[in-house]
Each structure stands twice: as C-alpha cells, then as structure tokens.
C-alpha cells in the first residue's frame, strides 16, 4: 500500500513542476491526492507500527506467549485485507476524488466517482483497527509476566497502549460518519446536504473527532519506538521515564478535545475556536515533555550512530519542526491564514513522514535481527537514513514557504510565482522516493540475507535493547 500511495505522491509532485500542470488533468490530479491520502493514512500510517512491531513486540516485551486473542488478531488482518481490496477496487475502476477528508456535501451529493466503495473500504478497515486496539489493551492489562508492573513496562508499550485507547474510542465515530455519508448518497436522507435539510459542517465535526486523535494513533507508536531507540543507543536509562509514560496518556486524552482546530474558518462559533485553540496549545505540552526527555537522555550518553539511531535522531529533529509549526496552526490568528495551504501539508508531513515513517524505519531496522535472525548492512542503512533525511527536508521545507505565501492545497494548477518553490519541492520528492525505495530494498531486504553471522555480537553491542530482551528472556 505504501508503494501505491508513494507512486501517487511522485506523480503529483511531477505534475506540479509547471504552474499549468505538467502531467495530468485536474480531475486525475484530484484522484491522485485522494488516493495518496486515503492509502497512506488509513492503510499505511495507522496500521504500520501497531500491526508489525506492535504484534511482534507487545507480547514479547511483557513476557507473554502471544496476544490475548490470537484468532482475533488474525481476523483483524483479514478484515484489513478486505478493506484494502475495496479501496484498491475503487482505485482501479476509475478512482475517487473526494480528498481523504470526504467533506460533505461534495462527497455525499456532488461527486459521481467511487465514493461508496472507497468509504466502505475505510469503514471495514476501521474494524481491523478496533480489534487490534482491543487486543493490545487486554493483553497489556491481563498478560504481563509476574513482576512486570506498569511502571516497569518498556516505554514502547505505554505508547502502544495510549494509541490502542484511541483506536477503540475514536474509530467508531469515523465509521458512523462514513456510514451517514453512504446513507445520504444512496437514500437521500438529509443529514449533511442543506438542500435536503442537513448540516454540511456536522460532517467535519464527526470526521475530525476521529481524525485528530488518529494523528496520534500514527505518531504515538512512533514516539514509543524512538523512546526505545534513544535509550538503547545512548546507553542510558530513559530520563524521566514516568513523564514520558504519562505524557503518552495525556496526549491520548487531550487528542479527543481539539478537533475544533480544523474548523476555525468553517463558520463554527468564534468561542468554539477559542476553546479548541487553547486545548491544542495544551496538547503541545506533553509532546514537548517527550522531546525534552529524549534530549536529556541523549545528554552525556555514549551515543552510537547506528542506522536505527540515525532514524531516531532524524525523528526528534523533524518531529520538533513539525510540532513547532503546529503552534502556528493552533494559534487562531495565524491559523486562519495558514489553514488549507501548503503550510499544513508541510506540517503534517513533518509529523507523519518525518515522525511516524522515520520511527517505523528505525524500528524495523532495530528489531529486524530479532524478527528475522538476520542483520541488515549497516553502511547502506546509514547512508539511506541520511539520504532520506536530506531528501525529506528538500521536499517539504519549501512547502512551508509556499503555504506562508498563500498557495492553497489541492491545487492542480497554480500562479506562476510559486513555481520556484514548487520545483524545489518536486526535485526533493523524486530524490526521496528513490532513496526510500533503495533503503527499504537494499538495507532491509537484501543485505540481511548475507550478513547473518553478525547477529551473535549484537546483544553485546546493544545493551539497551534492554527492557525488551530482558522481558522476553524472563
């Protein structure tokens, strides 16, 4: 799925090399960004870390044999595949152009592309999320080995736990919202379309009530991975363990209260905007706590710059950039100007790619030997990590500037004055994607095959793999 989403992104960037659009018709462009968003968010970012590292590490880290409900876990995999099949069908049979946000009444009435099929795919996949979340919650509550108290749990588990709570509580709201879109589309029940008595903005409330917490589903597991990596490669105990742990929970709780920051200019009342803005700022604090504690852990540590650590350091830098620019979006006055511009695009890619994807790659590299019994080629992996970091910044940093200058998002054609920055971004993009592919192919999949001999020395090299390994050996 990642490759499909990625391909859509590259096409978009290539298209935007010229102001008038170099490659495709606006309609196709709209389908590309919709596919990119739907696939990346619902079928890659949300399940990526929980479904791979989570399934593998959660039981191991708490000293259990498997998750509480192994069959449910298998079921959630099948459900995911079914959902993905619907979405892929929609893609192949002509696509959909609602944007991943499915805003009404555009989606519920005006478009005649495969809205229902796509929404159904996302709807079904939602159940996979709920099942996975439930499974993790029960496992962590009930199956910890004797002596594995809450406050001894590896930090990764705290973050997975917090993400699971969001999975279980928020996903049903998305399911309901999409269900209602379907209802209105098929049976013309007036829910969102004002022409038949609905309220168009209601959808945005429902959608963001899920989708803001969902942002934290994507980033919390990444934060957990980084907490583990930073401790391991600076050969120290995590600084402020309890603060990092509780900040995960604080993020999960607060994430449910800030959806209104997506609606500053939606005609919601100015007081609702006021409260949403205040709460969004409050949400910045637990994230800041994490960054401080990671840096404090690094401080005076004996740091070794192996590939996973490079990803983790990249994460900290990029996540901080993403987080700080988030403050400008949370602030009412600047938020109004920057809303729905490329600034937002850059902001969440710094969090989602610079954060979640970097953590995912770091985590996969880190635990690869444990999962497969083989080691990747460290030189290549480091090289790839650096190249991704540079390419990523090349792609997305210009987008901050574009957004500040006022280039709106989801534009297939744009005024000529934005071209220089757009070309820079496109150059960065094709560069990153190629390297990203290289990195995954070379460092993770090919090289481990012929470097397995080094695995034994690994535990000596990485004492801080610590908690995880200790737990699994208990």
């Amino acid at each position, binding site marked *: 799925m990642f490759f499909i989403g990625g391909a859509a992104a590259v096409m978009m960037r290539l298209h935007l090399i010229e102001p008038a659009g170099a490659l495709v018709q*606006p*309609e196709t462009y*709209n389908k590309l960004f919709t596919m990119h968003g739907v696939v990346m968010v619902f079928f890659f970012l949300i399940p990526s870390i929980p479904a791979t590292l989570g399934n593998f590490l959660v039981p191991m880290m708490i000293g259990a044999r498997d998750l509480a409900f192994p069959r449910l876990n298998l079921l959630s995999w099948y459900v995911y595949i079914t959902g993905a099949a619907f979405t892929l069908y929609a893609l192949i049979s002509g696509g959909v*152009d609602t*944007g991943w*946000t499915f*805003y009404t*009444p*555009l989606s519920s*009435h*005006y*478009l005649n592309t495969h809205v229902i099929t796509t929404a159904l795919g996302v709807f079904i996949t939602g159940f996979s999320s709920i099942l996975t979340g439930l499974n993790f919650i029960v496992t962590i509550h009930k199956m910890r080995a004797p002596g594995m108290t809450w406050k001894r749990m590896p930090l990764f588990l705290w973050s997975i736990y917090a993400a699971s709570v969001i999975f279980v509580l928020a996903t049903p709201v998305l399911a309901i919202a999409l269900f209602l879109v379907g209802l209105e589309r098929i049976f013309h029940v007036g829910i969102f*379309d*004002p*022409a038949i008595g609905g*309220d*168009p*903005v209601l959808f945005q409330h429902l959608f963001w009530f899920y989708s803001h917490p969902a942002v934290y589903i994507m980033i919390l597991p990444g934060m957990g991975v980084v907490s583990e990596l930073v401790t391991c490669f600076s050969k120290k105990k995590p600084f*402020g363990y309890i*603060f990092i742990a509780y900040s995960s929970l604080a993020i999960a709780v607060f994430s449910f209260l800030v959806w209104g920051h997506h609606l*500053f*200019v*939606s*005609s919601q009342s*100015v007081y609702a*905007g*006021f409260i949403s*803005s*205040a709460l969004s*700022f*409050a949400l*910045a*604090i637990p994230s*800041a*706590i994490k960054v*401080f*504690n990671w840096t*404090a852990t690094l401080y005076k540590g004996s740091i070794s710059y192996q590939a996973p650590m490079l990803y983790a350091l990249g994460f900290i830098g990029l996540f901080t950039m993403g987080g700080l620019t988030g*403050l400008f979006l*949370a*602030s*009412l*006055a*600047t*938020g*109004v*100007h920057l*809303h*729905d*511009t490329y600034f937002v695009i850059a902001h969440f890619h710094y969090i989602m790619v610079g954060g979640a994807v970097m953590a995912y790659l770091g985590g996969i590299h880190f635990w690869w030997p444990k999962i497969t019994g083989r080691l990747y080629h460290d030189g290549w992996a480091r090289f790839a990590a650096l190249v991704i970091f540079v390419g990523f910044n090349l792609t997305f940093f210009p987008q901050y500037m574009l957004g500040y*200058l*006022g280039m*709106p*998002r*989801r*534009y*297939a*054609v*744009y*005024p000529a004055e934005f071209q220089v920055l757009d070309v820079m971004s496109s150059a960065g993009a094709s560069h990153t994607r190629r390297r990203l592919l290289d990195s995954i192919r070379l460092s993770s999949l090919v090289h481990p095959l012929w470097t397995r001999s080094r695995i034994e020395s690994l535990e000596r090299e990485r004492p801080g793999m610590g908690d995880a390994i200790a737990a699994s050996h208990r």
Partner: protein
Amino acid sequence: MALEITGIAIPSLICIFLFLWGASLFFAAAQSPQGAMAIFVVGKQWMWHLQHPEGPREINQLHIPVDVPVRLTMTSEDVIHDFFVPAFRMKMDVVPGRYTSEWFEATKPGSYHLFCAQYCGTLHSGMTGTIEVMSLTGYAQWLRENSTAESMAQMGLQLFSRLGCDTCHLSDGTGAGPALQGRFGKQVTLRDGQNRVMDGAYVRQSILDPASLPLPNYRPVMPTFRGQVSEEHILQLIAYIKSLASGERTQAP
C-alpha cells in the same frame, strides 16, 4: 525533578502567550467595523459571483476602493468553498445553506490573488480570481462605468413582483401575509413564542422553508420558493426587504 518542572513550565508559558496573542487578534478580526462597505458573494462550482449593493455584478473579480473597510456576506450555491485572499490574511468558508462573513481593509492599491481554499471538486484550482484595489476616485469612476440600471434592492423589488410575493405581502397589511415594511432588523415572535431577529438568514429561511417560521395571526399559506430562486436572487430579495426597513427609496424611477 526541578529540571522536569522547568521543562514543563517554560513551554507552557510560551504556549499561553502565543495562544492569547493569536486569540486576541482573531477576535479583533471577527468583528467588522460599523459602516463597512457591503459586498455579496456567492460561490458556485467553480466560480465566484460578486455583487455590489449599487448593482454591478462581477465574476472572479472584485473592485474595491483602498482604505475602506469591506464586509463580505457569503454563501454557496452547491458545496463548501472558501474565500481566501492571502495578501489580506483573510479566509472564511463559504457554506451552502448559511451566511458567513468576513471583512478587510486594503491598504495598498494593486491586484491581489483570490483563491478558493476549500477543496470543491474537479476545477477547484480554477476557482480563483483577483481583488482589484483602486484609489477612491478610480473606484468611483469604475462604479460609474459599470453602473447598472438598478441597484440590488431594485432588482429585489422586480423579483418581489415577478415571483408574486406582492400578492400576499401588501404594504398596507391587508394581504394574506404580513406587510414587510419596517420589519427588517426587528424582533419577530413566532407562533410558539420563540423570538428571532429578522436578518438575512431569517428572510432566506422564510423564502425557502416558510413552514418552519409560522407567525401568529397568519395562516401558513406561503409556498416554498426552493428551486425557483438562486442564492443571488435571495440576496437581492433580502436587499429589497432591508431597504423597506430603512425607508430608502427603492421604487424604480
């Protein structure tokens, strides 16, 4: 521990400061100044229709005098759009079924980008235009050159008789519906005792869904005009009914 506390306190203070700063500017910008010049906007897949109260209509272009506050009253004929002028740091969704508004005061003559910032379908990125900010004299001249035979209120008057509104809403109050003279901006008490102020949204609702606003002492005979009037027509009708309140002369000469 002390380190932790300072690590939490400092960002908290910065956040509170940024929040209050942003919020105060936002509230200041939400309230349009008295006597701002009015412009009416209807978003429609994929173009902007704008109208000046004096009558001139524009598409994807808005001529405005410099140094005069301008207040936009906006609605959409179909999906949600967003009226975004980056140079004025101004953005507001244009939502079907309701009126939203925003205001600005251009300080430099020139021409500025207008974008639709809310994704609205196939030609979303073509839903752009320009705001032409002119000197006061330049604007006065532009108005003269583009003047129409009728103002918005007069267009409303025409509609009022063409649609047959005047068969019920007689000015002496003897018709099947209430006289609309002097009503705009005043309080209305509905049959169930609910109090509403007659503003643009109220008039719009009366025209599209009269049954939802039953008045005491009147039989609910007003038909809905949904499907017969466009959003632009409704804005003109509102302008007319508003002019009845201020006693402005709107009879066509």
